[in-house]
């Protein structure tokens, strides 16, 4: 029997059970903790998806504790390829890459679990783009929020130009709330992944700020830019008269991680300057360069820029 058959049987069985329960039991008791939770495709127990001969039974008590997160690294590193020559070697290779290797196939198609994982990762990527940054993170860091000319996420995605610009009222608000002419202006922006900011900001922003202050530099007031593109930093730099501007921004999510953040840093950024004047520190997330370590590195890079009075390609020369 194929795995798809297993799945379908399981779902049919479960739906039938739910229906019969709903008909016989009063509503309150159906929602009591003892009764099975409503069926949810994301809550299918692992063993039902991995094939095998246990004709697709769904766990009776599907609490979160019993279920595996199919998008977790541990689960993704379990081979689903059957009859593998060197299982240990395969697992090692799988641990070394986020690529979907060692997953096997079902005829000409992906296996059910591979398909579900792929869709779950895709959903995480979409969430990263469309969701907003967790406001409690911004509160804890004491950041105020300004917005670009984009009124919502749809406009943000379809009008990149507006994601680089601010209304005059926003600029005057910025000027009134921020220290002017700082040596270094740091701010955070959602960019294409709010998830990246929620995951990393608390472990990177204070590291950079503390390190720069210890170097005796005048560090500007940090804030958060909603619906911001990278080049929004140019208008901010001009408005605040910052010598170096550093934007911590969420990167376009892929299917490997939705938590990747980058720092774009420029010396005396101006609107319309060449992109080559930006220095980038990319791949900041738990599976790449850890946020605290990236912060320490960025602080050194900023110090280097102030000494060299240059950034981007000019700095590398």
């Amino acid at each position, binding site marked *: 029997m194929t795995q798809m058959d297993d799945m379908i049987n399981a779902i049919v069985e479960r739906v039938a059970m739910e229906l019969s329960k709903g008909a016989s039991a009063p509503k309150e008791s159906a929602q009591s903790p003892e009764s099975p939770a409503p069926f949810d495709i994301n809550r299918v127990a692992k063993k039902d998806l991995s094939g095998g001969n246990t004709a697709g039974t769904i766990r009776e008590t599907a609490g979160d504790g019993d279920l595996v997160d199919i998008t977790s690294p541990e689960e993704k590193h379990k081979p689903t390829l059957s009859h593998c020559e060197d299982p240990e070697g395969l697992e*090692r*290779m799988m641990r070394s890459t986020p690529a979907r290797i060692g997953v096997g196939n079902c005829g000409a198609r992906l296996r059910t679990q591979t398909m579900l994982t792929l869709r779950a990762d895709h959903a995480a990527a979409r969430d990263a783009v469309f969701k907003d940054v967790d406001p409690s993170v911004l509160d804890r860091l004491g950041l105020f929020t300004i917005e670009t000319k984009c009124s919502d996420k749809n406009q943000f995605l379809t009008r990149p130009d507006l994601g680089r610009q601010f209304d005059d009222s926003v600029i005057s608000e910025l000027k009134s709330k921020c220290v002017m002419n700082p040596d270094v202006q740091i701010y955070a922006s959602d960019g294409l992944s709010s998830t990246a900011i929620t995951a990393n900001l608390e472990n990177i922003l204070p590291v950079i700020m503390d390190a720069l202050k210890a170097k005796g530099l005048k560090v500007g007031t940090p804030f958060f830019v909603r619906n911001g593109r990278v080049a929004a930093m140019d208008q901010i730099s001009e408005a605040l008269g910052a010598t170096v501007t550093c934007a911590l921004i969420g990167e376009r999510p892929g299917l490997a991680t939705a938590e990747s953040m980058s720092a774009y840093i420029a010396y005396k950024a101006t609107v319309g300057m060449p992109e080559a004047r930006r220095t*980038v*520190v990319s*791949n900041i997330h*738990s599976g790449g*360069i*850890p946020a*605290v370590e990236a912060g*320490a590195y960025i602080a050194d890079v900023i110090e280097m820029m102030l000494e060299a009075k240059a950034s981007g390609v000019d700095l590398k020369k």
Partner: protein
Amino acid sequence: MREESTILSVGIDIGTSTTQVIFSRLTFKNSAGYFAVPHIEIADKNVVYKSDIYMTPLKDRVMIDGEKVRAIVAGEFLKAGFAPGDTQTGAVIITGESARKENSEIVLKELSDFAGEFVVSTAGPDLESIIAGKGSGAAAYSKERQCTVVNLDIGGGTTNAVLFDCGEVIAKGCLDIGGRLIRVDQDMKVTYVSDSVRRIADHEGLDIRPGMEADYQTVESICRKMAELLGDWLEHKDSPLLDSIVTPGSSPFDFDKPIRAVCFSGGVADCLYVHKEGPWNPYGDIGVVLGDAIRQSRLWSEYRVVDAKETIRATVVGAGSYTTSVSGSTIAYDRDVFPLKNIPVLKLTVREQEHCFADDREWFREKLRWMLEQSDSEQLIVAMKGKQNPSYTELRRMAACLSGVLDETLPPGVPLIIVLEYDMAKALGQVMTRMLKGKRDVICVDSIQVDQNDFVDMGKPLVDGLVIPVVVKTLIFG
């Protein structure tokens, strides 16, 4: 910004029978892309000079003649065109029966002006196995192919085995099987028979003693048995005979993984990969016959055989090219106080490091006092695994614990040195420096794995000061 640095490394191997010198250039390069944090690695290990192979000068059966060793090394520096002081790193390895503390002291004294900056270590059978396995290329093969490879370094007196799994050592051991265990003079008279050969001969009902005529059939039978014993050893087929020829002081060669490939190095490997035409005893020993016997045995037919990059020079190349490693590329140090030499390690386990992450100073103070009492050294390295993605809060607690306790416990003026495995050294080092406000130097490096009882050398920073070369050594005095 410089993206590349090269340093010259020297390897000197002083063994029971031979002494060799090699020079190699280690190239450190940034392999990360333009938009990423730098990642410096040793991109190239190029052996630029190989010496002749000398007979090790001895004063008596085991004591090295230091002056003559010095003359050999001085001569080779001259021939290679390098002056003492040109080399920035390297290792002198004393192996086999020469591996004793007295010899190590002699070598250290005689070679100090050449080897001011190198490691001198006497290799026990275990360390010798590992170094040979790296020099032969077996370790690299195992890493590239992600498989298990055993390297058999078959020398004059012993066979040093090391098993790599994905480039990591998982077992090592040593047997008294080698090419010079029976020696024969020009008149085909046996002049020497080792204890291990005597045991093998007794077991097989063969008779071979010094003074006898050397009989090819007998020698061949003994070599076939040696090859069979090596096979038994790899397959865990224990026997009283096999137990009796294990080299004293070596680890038991235990492992629970199937061996996928075999690589041969050492002098005998030269007669093993291809048959040497001519008389069977061109070197006055049984090396050629043993090589043939192994090629005809199941070691050759039942395993994938890897071509060794180095055979007789595997150990010296290992010493010269594979003892230096490189720190992570985001590290912290306040000033260039390098090189630092022979610093003992206090290693915290994953559970113990939690005390530091929790800023449990009382516990750490105790541990540190104990360590300082154990070692005579004033300096020490605090080493631990660290965390893959620590929070800033955890990091600050840990920095407070380390800098607070180390500062009050270590003698004045001594730098605080932290070695981590996970990439977090720059962040930790910066916080510690701020907390100490310049009272002491802080050195914090990562991507280096060390263990309790190891000693660490740290060289001058390379590639624009981004990384430091590190030598981790386990000193074993015989």
